[in-house]
């Protein structure tokens, strides 16, 4: 069977929905990283720099 013709082609609606999910997931991940970064700084305060060398 011709592999090229056998592929599933997403419809316009499926592509649009996938893009929307991808953007939302990217934003959620960035937001989570920012929250953990600032959260750690404010939770630990100056102690954030106290670590064994």
């Amino acid at each position, binding site marked *: *069977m011709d*592999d090229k013709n*056998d*592929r*599933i082609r*997403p*419809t316009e*609606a*499926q592509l*649009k*929905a*996938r893009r*929307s*999910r991808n*953007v*939302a*997931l990217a934003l959620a991940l960035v937001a*989570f990283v920012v*929250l*953990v970064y*600032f*959260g750690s700084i*404010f*939770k630990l305060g100056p102690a954030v720099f106290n670590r064994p060398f």
Partner: protein
Amino acid sequence: MALAQREQILDDTGRLSEATAGDFLSLLKPRVMSLVIFTAFVGQILAPGSLNPILAFIATLCIAVGAGAAGALNMWYDADIDAVMSRTQKRPVPDGRVTAKEALAFGLTLSAFSVATLGLMANWLAGGLLAFTIFFYAVIYTMWLKRSTPQNIVIGGAAGALPPVVGWAATSGAVSLESIVLFLIIFLWTPPHFWALALFKTGDYERAGVPMMPNVAGEASTKRQIFIYSILVAVSGILPTALGFASIYYGAFAAALGLGFIWYAWRVLVVADETMKPAKSLFGFSVLYLFAIFAALLVEAIVTRIGA
């Protein structure tokens, strides 16, 4: 492409999804979430001690996401019920936009992240209470009580009443009498609120086989119970003043609102109306009541802090 692979793609588990980000957002029940955010925030502000504003914001966000995750788990389990009820049949799972498995994975992931983040950023008492809230709503209420007893929303109401306790614990690191009073206000408010809804949606619940009070004990009994609970709601509303952690002004405001609640419940009890207009009015007023009580507590706490 191997046949087995192709079959897997055409199978439901490997289908190309048309679910948008908005569909996943609606799994979190944003309208319920807004009340959770508000009551949890009030709990945070009222509690003794202080939490850094950034950490307080993260704590509120975690409680909101945790509540949303519980909503997603509820929609995963209740898709069969939601499909036959007019109020819920357009939800993403019964409508086929999101699969049940996706809703389950989404709910579990957000539950784990919200609990862990709250535990790390605030404290583990708050994190533990949030985990218990999600467990209580998803397992005790959704999987067990909802389909088995007309007391479902009475006991299950504890899940909706816990957010201010979680918020209080996030700030103070403890659970105190004041936070239990906040819990009690929402806990006692839940039955009349949902039974008023059930009175004008009886057909829906009956079709879905959910044993709500009106279709098990009958309309007359439900109306009597609504009235009894409305008195308890009014009393619980003035407890903050009675116990000395809110002013007499708050007490007068809460008493007036409580009398309003009893008045609407009384109309449900005595006015015979086929269209269930009194029940709809009580339902509308109950939302306003809870919002106003917590808003009053919030305003008073802020004014007291500014004055101090």
